[in-house]
């Protein structure tokens, strides 16, 4: 008779220990944007090209007044330009002629002078570049003007300047 040996083994115990090891893990992602460049009129009330009081057949108190108009543009955008006919055609000619209280005047635009903004950093956006144009008016002497009373005005006419960027 054979001896039969049956043997079995059994697990006496399972030990498990856990530790937390300090560390970091990184999750990368992208940030994307496109930009359409623009120029915008700087904040502030529209200025006034003021010829003062004009005595009929005489001259204006200020025959050659001037004003400045500033535009803020996307940083690094090339300086804007003005055409030969940059003024509105609604209250005068696009070349800069017009009348106020029957007195004829012309305008010329010069510039721009520029004040460049700052480059962006990793935490601050770029600042705008500023471009300033000067408009000088001329009102010739000896004009009769148009007025049914002893004096008229001051009269204000709205005009606009258009730049291209």
């Amino acid at each position, binding site marked *: *008779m*054979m*001896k*039969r*040996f*049956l*043997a*079995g*083994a*059994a*697990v*006496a*115990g*399972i*030990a*498990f*220990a*856990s*530790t*937390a*090891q*300090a*560390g*970091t*893990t*990184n*999750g*990368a*992602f*992208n*940030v*994307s*944007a*496109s*930009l*359409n*460049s*623009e120029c*915008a009129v700087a904040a502030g009330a529209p200025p006034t090209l003021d010829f003062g009081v004009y005595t009929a057949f005489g001259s204006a108190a200020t025959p050659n007044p001037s004003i400045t108009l500033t535009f*803020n*543009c*996307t*940083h*690094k*955008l*090339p300086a804007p330009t003005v055409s030969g006919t940059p003024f509105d055609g609604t209250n005068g000619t696009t070349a800069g002629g017009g009348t106020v209280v029957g007195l004829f005047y012309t305008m010329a635009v010069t510039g721009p002078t520029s004040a460049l*903004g700052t*480059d*962006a*950093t*990793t*935490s*601050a*956006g*770029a*600042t*705008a*570049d500023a471009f300033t144009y000067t408009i000088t008016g001329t009102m010739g002497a000896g004009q009769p003007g148009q007025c049914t009373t002893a004096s008229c005005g001051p009269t204000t006419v709205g005009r606009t300047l258009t730049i291209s960027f």
Partner: protein
Amino acid sequence: MGLSLRAAAAAAALGFVLPAAQAATTSNNFNVTVTLTSQCAATNSGTTTVAFGTYVAFQVAAATGTAVNLTFQCTRGFSPVSAAFDTVNGTAAGVGVVQGLQYTLTAAAPTTTAGTAATTATIGTGDTKTYAITSTMPGGQAGSCATASCGPTTVVRTLIVTF
């Protein structure tokens, strides 16, 4: 933190069988030990984009980037302690610049999707920690661009999770 588990097992007896053939069992106990180091690992790194689309310089309204979820798989029951953004392309608080335009990122507190415990037949799965990333780009910005339009421009950011 550590979790210890003891299991008791039944033992079988090992005996000498007489030729007269009497079946029996015997046991020999032993221990199984393991040390687990809890970890978290990113699972979708480099695959998502916070997209702000096209920003028109000086636009009045703020722009909002697409929301993205950053997911990390962690040891079951284990949670990170903090998260912050990289300081290579921005600030740890989430401020950054793309195309000369400043933006701010926000990472919400993570949500947890529990994994499955291991069985004698299958391995377990980790808990999924999800960070929802939202963003905003203020209006009124000039941006930086030498032509009529620029981009899309992409900047790489990183959420650094500490555990």
